[in-house]
């Protein structure tokens, strides 16, 4: 459903993505992991067209995204840090986003209700706490029945109850065959929500296979220790690399 072909991206002299190739299939949920600065967010932003790659091509649903914009209607994106205009109210923000997608009439307001946001529609965005803002981001990602969900650290900053609400929603949509791409540093959560592990290291794909396969390769039975093993390997593989400025 999404294929990333030979993407290169440099920020100044820092190579964030190097000859990047990945395929995301419908119906599979992917856990994207990697140390800070390994290129996770950059990859996501490249798929969304917010970052333009230096070379290479990305296809979403079989079509190149170069110069395209309509494909984003099929993606529900939840940013790592949701930044919103300050003087707009939650209700206005929702209406505005609905206005941007005139083809969609039927909105998924389940999260809005379950988060209790329907009682806060009149609150301006700048008065919201980080967690509430995160809830707003989640609601927007799920509002338009997308077929692809890209969630960048979805549970960071949420209280345990909200985390449960969000997880249940993710599971529900996942079981309906939607594609999920989730980055997180909370491994237990990823194990619960995803079936496929992608490990990035210094702008390269270090591991890309199902979680069973990961456990088999590493010889571990627990997901977290398997990832820890993977991290060890990635560090060993390039012992005298040039100093990492990330």
């Amino acid at each position: 459903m999404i294929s990333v072909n030979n993407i290169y991206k440099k920020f100044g002299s820092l190579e964030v993505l190097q000859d990047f190739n990945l395929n995301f299939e419908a119906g599979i949920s992917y856990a994207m992991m990697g140390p800070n600065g390994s290129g996770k967010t950059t990859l996501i932003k490249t798929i969304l067209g917010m970052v333009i790659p230096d070379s290479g091509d990305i296809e979403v649903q079989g079509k190149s995204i170069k110069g395209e914009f309509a494909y984003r209607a099929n993606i529900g994106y939840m940013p790592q840090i949701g930044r919103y205009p300050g003087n707009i109210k939650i209700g206005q923000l929702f209406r505005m986003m609905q206005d941007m997608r005139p083809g969609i009439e039927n909105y998924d307001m389940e999260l809005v209700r379950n988060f209790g946001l329907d009682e806060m529609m009149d609150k301006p965005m700048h008065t919201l706490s980080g967690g509430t803002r995160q809830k707003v981001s989640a609601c927007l990602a799920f509002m338009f029945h997308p077929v692809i969900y890209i969630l960048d650290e979805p549970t960071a900053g949420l209280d345990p109850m909200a985390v449960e609400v969000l997880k249940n929603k993710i599971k529900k949509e996942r079981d309906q065959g939607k594609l999920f791409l989730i980055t997180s540093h909370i491994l237990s959560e990823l194990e619960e929500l995803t079936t496929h592990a992608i490990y990035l290291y210094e702008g390269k794909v270090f591991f890309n296979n199902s979680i069973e396969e990961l456990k088999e390769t590493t010889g571990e039975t627990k997901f977290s220790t398997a990832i820890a093993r993977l991290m060890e390997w990635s560090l060993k593989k390039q012992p005298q690399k040039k100093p990492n400025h990330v």
Partner: protein
Amino acid sequence: MFKLLKYSLYDIVKSRFAILYTLFMVLVTVSIYQISEDLSKVSLSLLNIMLMIVPLISAVFATTHFFNNLEFTELMLAQPVKRRDVFLSQLLAVIIMLSLAILIGIGLPMAIWGAESSLLVLLAAGIALSIVFAGLAFLASVLTRDKAKAIGITLSFWIYFSLVYDGLVLYVIYSFADYPLEKATLAMVMLNPVDLARIIMLMQLDISALMGYTGAFFQQFFGSAKGIMLTSGVLLIWMVWPVLLSMRIFKKKDF
């Protein structure tokens, strides 16, 4: 595009700055009208405001607006909308707000106390300068990620076109005083939107007779239909090229 523009405009018109700027314009215009009865003197005073204050405020406001609205821009870029539309809606909202401030702030007192045709040219020139400097400000904004740097670049545009450039022209005229310089000065004027606006307005005021031979030459050139077409055309180019260039850069920018 229109939906985006609607939201940007709604946001900008509600801002305190829009109201303050309009009030400031009203206040200045009203006080100028109170001081003098002579309409051409009024025009001359307003002219100076148009040439100095309007570009300065346009430039600074457009830059701050671009950076203050970065959140909105980022949010929109993740939505199914064109990058071009995101950019143009922001810029158009700024231009519409600045133009409205001029129309209301200066146009309204003019409508009440009467105006010569030259005052209409004055309004048009003020709006044209607003567009030129808003475009230059957006250009500076897309060139850098730092708000302070962008404001610095914008201010240097303003200082260059409003102050330094005239000094350079005077220096050239003084140094080459022995040569016929009419055509050269004309060419130099074309390279500065503020000078263009100034000359277009001065020609309307009939005081070019005071400027001697060069003034007469200018009057002959800028007074002719061909001259008016040419100057308007060049001013139009000044309005368009910063916008086109900054849009090109914006389309390739990473967020």
